[in-house]
């Protein structure tokens, strides 16, 4: 049951700096752990996170095995026009999740 929590202000004034917060549900299995019988637990992590605003990429992050479960991102951007933020997480085992949030700029 993967799910995301997104926090984007609904409204902002033109030129405002806004904070965007995202939380993605994921186990982030490192690939360095072993089972009791000695087998490696295969790596299962989110490898990349992208945020686009009206189709243009504004933030990107690569993720690695040392990042904790349920990765949380907080970043800032300047708003110039109303539009839609699209978020995309991709990872191991074909993991791919998307979410979006709209903002209206006055």
């Amino acid at each position, binding site marked *: *049951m993967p*799910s995301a*929590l*997104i*926090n984007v202000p609904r409204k902002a004034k033109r030129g405002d700096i806004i904070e965007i*917060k995202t*939380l993605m*549900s994921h186990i*982030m299995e490192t690939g360095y752990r072993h089972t009791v019988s000695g087998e490696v637990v295969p790596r299962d992590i989110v490898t990349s996170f992208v945020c686009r605003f009206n189709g243009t990429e504004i933030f990107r992050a690569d993720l690695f095995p040392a990042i*904790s*479960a*349920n990765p*949380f991102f*907080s970043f800032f951007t300047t708003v110039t026009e109303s539009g839609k933020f699209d978020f995309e997480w991709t990872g191991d085992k074909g993991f791919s999740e998307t979410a979006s949030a709209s903002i209206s700029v006055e």
Partner: protein
Amino acid sequence: MSLARTIAIAGLLVATAVSAAEAPQDQRRSGFTFMTPETQAMQDDDTANPGMLWVLDGETLWKAKTGAADKACADCHGDAAASMKGVAARYPAFDKALGRPVDLEQRINLCRTDHQQAPPLPYESRELLALTAFVAKQSQGSAIEAGSDPQLEPFIAKGRALYGQRQGQLNLACSNCHEENWDKRLAGSAITQGHATGYPLYRLEWQTLGSLQRRLRACLTGIRAQAYDFGSPELIALELYLMSRAKGMSMESPAVRP
């Protein structure tokens, strides 16, 4: 003379025992107050609190039909925001049919087996934690009322006895840390007063949500005692005692702890 002295000494001993037993009501502190401002902010912000991921899953499960009866929780209980408000603050509660207290996880599983005719969910499974977190979230901010039922008294007494009973290779009782040394630190971590106000909660160390039973078992392993099994009468008695001891404090579920 000597008899009077013996009585006086006995009286002193009783007074000491009582003062060491429980923190006075106005000095009780949630584990929240021992955390850094950063971790407190994480708990307070519903979009940064990872426990909310389980609450969201729980909301989905609440509405999902399951079992041979093909019923969802919502089919009987309706809107959880109304029907479940304050419920978690009363658990563990006395179950008349079983003649013993059950905690919130057991209540959910009893509902599943009796009314949904579905198999019970395993302890610490994502589904059971999600449903418990979702139900407990509806009581966020409510005052804890567990243990008010007079039928629970013998079970609270059992929990209190277990809480004060030394055990394990380190020969420690819960009270040795959480009553006598809660203002100190253990290997850099705050020793809290052990008020179970926020369960199920997200522990950063676990990187997942966990129940109060998991926490208690981890403490027992820490003092190198044999941990009681999930669902054992001992763990329920301890849960019940801890919740009755926290009576009047605010529910925080889903809390975040380091």
